């Protein structure tokens, strides 16, 4: 049996006196899509940032395909090549053209020749309908286009695992669909993904498994049909009721 794409054992993380993650265990199989749901401040974003080693964890261990990435002397840059992350606020590099945003990683980290990196980047941009934006600066693009570029930038590193941190939360409502469609396409293509999201309908459609985070713990997890239709935990029910009241499910 092959090792899971991602295994997390007992992660604790605190910012000062605030315990943001309080013992998270999670296993993600290859090609699996996991939706992380929960209120703001429940630890979804922090969990993703810890997996990408952008935040050092206080306790626990993280394995990617069986290899521990939280041990001493691990080359974090090498790990990050295999784990892509897309942020809520896009974080494109505003001084670079779209094409240069996408090829920066492949050129500087993977040391690929410029022409190769650009050819691959153009193929990716084309696939997501962004080819004609290749030579523009990010601020000429709509929010939805910027976020799609950010996804392409992460994909250009050919990661084994993609982390999406509320990628539609900063978008105008009419731009959400174009980004979600990209994520759907990635899921259909077998990309292993961990998705923190407030889009419950989307989570229900796309995820193989939904994890409800509450106060830094995974309180409940299961197939979307079960979590959304008959949640076991009162907290989960409460959370989902509030979402339904807000007309978001």
């Amino acid at each position, binding site marked *: 049996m092959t090792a899971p794409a991602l295994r997390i054992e007992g992660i604790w993380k605190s910012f000062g006196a605030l315990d943001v993650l309080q013992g998270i265990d999670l296993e993600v199989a290859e090609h699996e899509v996991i939706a992380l749901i929960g209120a703001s401040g429940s630890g979804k974003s922090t969990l993703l940032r810890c997996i990408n080693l*952008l935040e050092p964890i206080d306790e626990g261990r993280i394995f990617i395909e069986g290899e521990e990435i939280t041990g001493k002397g691990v080359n974090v840059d090498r790990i*990050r090549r295999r784990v892509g*992350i897309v942020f809520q606020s896009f974080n494109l*590099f505003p001084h670079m053209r779209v094409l240069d945003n996408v090829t920066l990683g492949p050129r500087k980290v993977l040391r690929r020749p410029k022409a190769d990196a650009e050819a691959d980047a153009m193929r990716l941009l084309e696939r997501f309908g962004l080819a004609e934006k290749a030579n523009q600066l990010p601020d000429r693009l709509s929010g939805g286009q910027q976020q799609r570029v950010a996804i392409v930038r992460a994909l250009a590193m050919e990661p084994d695992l993609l982390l999406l941190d509320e990628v539609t939360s900063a978008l105008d409502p009419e731009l959400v669909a174009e980004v979600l469609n990209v994520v759907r396409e990635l899921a259909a293509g077998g990309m292993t993904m961990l998705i923190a999201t407030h889009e419950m309908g989307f989570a229900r459609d796309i995820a193989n498994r939904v994890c409800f985070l509450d106060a830094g713990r995974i309180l409940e997890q299961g197939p979307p049909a079960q979590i959304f239709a008959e949640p076991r935990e009162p907290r989960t029910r409460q959370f989902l009721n509030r979402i339904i009241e807000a007309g978001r499910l």
Partner: protein
Amino acid sequence: MTALGGPGTPDRGGLSSLPGSRARRRNDDRGSALRSTLVALVSTVLVFGVIVYVAVNSPGWPAVQASFFDKDIFWSSLPDIALAFLVNVQLFLIAEVLILVLALLLAVARSSTSAVLFPVRLMATIYVDVFRAVPGVLVIYILGFGIPGLNLPGIPTDPFLYAVFALTLIYSAYVSEVYRAGIASIHPSQTAAARSLGLSQAQALRHVVLPQAIRRVVPPLLNDFIGLQKDTVLVSYIGVIEIFRQSQIIESANFNFTPYLAVALVFLVVTIPMARFTDWLILRQVRQERGGGTALATLAGTPASGAGAVR
């Protein structure tokens, strides 16, 4: 549709809903602009008129006029002074390049966060503190007379070299702080995005942070270089025959201060265009960062212009 107040809706849209009020406002604006121009003109003429009047009618004016405003000495000294100014230009150009490099290294050192680099950070901090604290003239004196005074074999004696060295040391301290402010102004999410792609800290700095930071600090950098242009005269103290030293030589030969006036004029001629260029760059940056309309409002930022009133 404008009632929704989308991003493109001007703030003042709601005020001019009455037909014709927009045209009337435009006329009012034009009228008040004309009025402000007139007021500015009259007050300028008045202020400068009074200053000139007081100076020219002062008891010592004839003596001052003779020793500062001698036409013949002015024209005869100008060629020598202009020639000596080339030394200042050389000094400025060489020091500027060295300063840009040294200051960037200092700023990067001070902006580092890793524990291993603490000694580097400490040294850079001490350097910046020392060279901002000690008056520039003293640094020039100490280096220009002290080091050659050691009489070490093979050590250069050309004061020009020590002048470049001293100005570079002094100004690097200031300029590194400008760079550092620029680096600090780049949001950490940019570094996070670069690191998440697998770039090392150094690569993130080189490809993502510095290009943005440097672009942002060009106007304040130019401002420091205007200061450097002027401070090149300080090296006259260690025997570099540059514009100020040259004018002193002419002054003592004629017992007349007019050459200093010529020097002042030369600096006005080179510095003012640089200052205007800096202003223009700042304005352009404001325009880029806030979007089209606001920069014009800044430009026409008089209280009478209406746009100023909104702000």
